[in-house]
């Protein structure tokens, strides 16, 4: 027992080791889940992964740094279009990891540009600017229609499953790897890496500075914090996450078109973040799961109830909207936040 | 005038006022004293309905304060100068003052407005400035001035001297005395600085951890050496 306790103690003390341990557990869960579910579910999990990555970045921006962005879908668009350009027919120029990195960097650069402007804005002004960003960016794809495919968008290649990967999975599970499953793996690996990095940041000096800026900017400035830098940095990090998410999305959806990056996407991300619980990575993940699975379940229920197609299609947004309203009214701290509060109050009473 | 009986207020597990009973006579200044966290602010907030007591009663000339909503307090002639942050920083100085005299015609606001401007000439210079630009002390003057605009029957003051220059504190205390003496105003004065509060008050109430320690004439309290050291810190 005590033999175990010492290393365990070390693990729980070091931020890195703790996060890596959680990541490892997460990885095992991911493998178990992806291997035991159908190809269709795999595809859904891929969608959950990219929503989760983007929501994770956004929760850092909004939860830790207090900046509201209604426009993160735009950064996903940059990531997705970079992917589409790099990963088209014929021989791709870069391996998948390279594509993901480039997409992230492109979004980072754009994020820096927008972040510099956004750093001076507050509350609704920031919301307005990012809202405009969300609706403006898809138009660029049409404007540069010759290289970006216009309204119709660009097709993205289905990633080839590398031989070693297929072999490894076959060896472990005796299943073949479908393209959907491979993309789901890419998405979840990207998510785990992203979340470990975000968790590191939020536990570190950087995260603390972000929170300080959120709580009281004048006091933070007096403590020697460069407000602009802190804000831009937070914006950049979250834009990078969105870019990465966009890249995974492009691979999962196999096309990037302007109509894939509507305002709704941006608002969906924000919703995921708030429903899950602001500032919590777990919350972002829960929010992403909710948004991935809820509509389909609800539409199914609608069909079972004998509603017409149109009615059951409208049922999904109806329920989804109601869930948003109810969560805000009944659990304003989001799902994770409320669970924590509930646990705390139970602990206090016992 | 003001009768407080068995008043009890809690914030969750913390009991901030504990079965407090005292009364403040009309036309007198009653100082409410005690260390930080004694429950002074809570007392005033309970009286003006910002927090609800769990037990007990408070009556103003027979009107039940405990059941009166906050917004009806000014109708009863009660004005409350809250601790810190009472200025609506997004409105102009004059708008803030106008809010104090709501419900009265522009003409009948003119006289109190003049009085406030004579008392605090700074405010009259800045009447169209957004209150946000005011200095800490100027804001405090504005809040006090605003309460005076209502020409209340009873005035609850929470640390009015906070951030004010000694000379202004003196002026305000002078004004309070004169209002009390000429108009029959009743004042409940919460002060951290017990010494100066007692110097103008008629009565004093000393709280500790939400309970009443003593309630007596101000001069008696000021003379009580033991009390001063134990609770009043001078």
């Amino acid at each position: 027992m005590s033999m175990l306790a010492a290393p365990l103690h070390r693990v729980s003390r070091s931020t890195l080791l703790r996060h890596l341990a959680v990541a490892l557990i997460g990885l095992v869960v991911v493998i178990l889940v992806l291997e035991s579910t159908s190809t269709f579910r795999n595809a859904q999990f891929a969608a959950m992964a990219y929503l989760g990555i983007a929501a994770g970045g956004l929760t850092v921006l909004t939860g830790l740094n207090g900046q509201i962005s209604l426009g993160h879908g735009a950064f996903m668009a940059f990531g997705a279009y970079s992917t589409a350009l790099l990963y088209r027919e014929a021989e791709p120029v870069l391996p998948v990891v390279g594509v993901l990195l480039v997409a992230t960097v492109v979004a980072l650069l754009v994020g820096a540009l927008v972040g510099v402007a956004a750093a001076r804005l507050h509350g609704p002004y920031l919301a307005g600017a990012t809202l405009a960003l969300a609706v403006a960016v898809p138009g660029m794809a049409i404007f540069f229609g010759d290289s970006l495919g216009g309204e119709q968008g660009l097709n993205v290649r289905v990633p080839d499953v590398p031989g070693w990967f297929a072999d490894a999975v076959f060896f472990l599970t005796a299943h073949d790897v479908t393209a959907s499953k491979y993309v789901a793996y890419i998405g979840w690996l990207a998510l785990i890496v992203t979340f470990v990095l975000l968790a590191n940041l939020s536990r570190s000096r950087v995260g603390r500075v972000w929170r300080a800026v959120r709580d009281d900017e004048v006091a933070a400035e007096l403590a020697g914090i460069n407000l602009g830098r802190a804000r831009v940095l937070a914006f950049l990090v979250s834009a990078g996450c969105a870019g990465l998410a966009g890249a995974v999305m492009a691979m999962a959806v196999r096309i990037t078109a302007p109509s894939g990056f509507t305002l709704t996407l941006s608002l969906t991300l924000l919703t995921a973040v708030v429903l899950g619980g602001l500032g919590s990575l777990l919350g972002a993940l829960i929010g992403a799961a909710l948004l991935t699975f809820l509509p389909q379940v609800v539409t199914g229920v609608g069909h079972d109830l004998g509603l017409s197609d149109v009615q059951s299609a409208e049922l999904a947004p109806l329920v989804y909207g109601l869930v948003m309203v109810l969560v805000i009214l009944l659990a304003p701290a989001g799902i994770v936040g409320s669970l924590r509060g509930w646990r705390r109050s139970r602990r206090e009473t016992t | 005038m003001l009768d407080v009986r068995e008043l009890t207020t809690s914030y969750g597990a913390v009991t901030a006022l504990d079965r407090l009973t005292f009364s403040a006579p009309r036309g007198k200044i009653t100082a409410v004293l005690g260390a930080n966290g004694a429950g002074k602010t809570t007392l005033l907030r309970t009286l003006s309905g910002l927090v609800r007591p769990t037990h007990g009663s408070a009556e103003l000339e027979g009107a039940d304060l405990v059941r009166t909503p906050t917004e009806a307090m000014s109708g009863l002639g009660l004005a409350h100068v809250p601790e810190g942050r009472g200025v609506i920083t997004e409105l102009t100085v004059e708008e803030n003052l106008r809010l104090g005299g709501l419900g009265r015609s522009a003409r009948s606001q003119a006289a109190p407005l003049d009085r406030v401007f004579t008392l605090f000439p700074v405010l009259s210079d800045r009447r169209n400035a957004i209150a946000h630009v005011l200095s800490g002390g100027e804001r405090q003057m504005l809040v006090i001035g605003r309460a005076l605009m209502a020409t209340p029957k009873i005035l609850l003051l929470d640390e009015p001297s906070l951030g004010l220059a000694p000379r202004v504190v003196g002026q305000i205390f002078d004004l309070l005395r004169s209002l009390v003496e000429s108009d029959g105003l009743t004042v409940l004065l919460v002060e951290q600085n017990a010494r100066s509060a007692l110097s103008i008050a008629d009565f004093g109430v000393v709280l500790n951890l939400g309970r009443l320690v003593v309630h007596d004439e101000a001069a008696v309290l000021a003379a009580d050496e033991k009390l001063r050291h134990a609770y009043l810190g001078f």
Partner: protein
Amino acid sequence: MQQLLTTALTGLTLGFVYAAFALALVLIWRSTRIVNFAQAPMAMITTYVALLLIDAGLSYWLAFVVALVSGLVLGALVERVFVRPVEGKSEINAVILTLGLFIVIHALAAVLFGSRYRSFPAPFGLRGFEVGELNVALTGFGMFTIVAVLVVMGLLVALFRFTDLGLRMRASAYNAEVARLLGVRVGRMLTLGWALAALVGSLSGLLIAGGSLVHPSYMDSVVVYGFVAAVLGGLDSPLGAVVGGLLLGVSLSFVSGYVGSEVVALAALVILMLVLLLKPGGLFSHAAARRV
């Protein structure tokens, strides 16, 4: 010349429509410090109310009035039932709440009224004038729009600047506790603010619908540009909302006509960014605020 005039005039009319919507946002912002994203579907619902009445044979003006009144009621209702619990709490929760309402109302409307296009009548002509050779692209209904928006703006400015009611509403929004201490019935003010805003919103809905097509999403693009217009103007200022709306309407019309309609949204972003970089609080914000 002709094209220039036409582009400017159609932009102007469009600008007034944005302005109307922005005015509603400003009203709610002034009275509760919340940006109401559900403004558009709320207005959409009341437009459908008018449409149903007109289809049932009522006169345009009667339907118009009923729609405005139902807007008033709807606004009050929404504030009382949904918004009250989030007032004065975290800003982002209010955003999500109104977004949720947006989606719910939208879906309800699609179920109730179906999602096909319907046409909405206009009380005045939809033909432009001809002055000699020149076509003036301003219709009777366009002028009605302009007058209506200017009147509403005037009324709002007067309400806030000169009346105690306006002062009470603003005080309630900025600092509910202090307002309450000063005898302001804060709850009523907030409800009133929402009700009035929903009324103005309904008006904007009717103005957009007049002589055009209505379906559950017909207001969606106005949300974006109306919001951008309000932010341009400074969110706190009715005059700003109108100026912001006009600025946006006219410049976007020119961009659409002379550059391409696909960059309209981009142009809106650029205009907004330029203005906010110079004045982070919008065109009509107060100068250099004190920070400490």
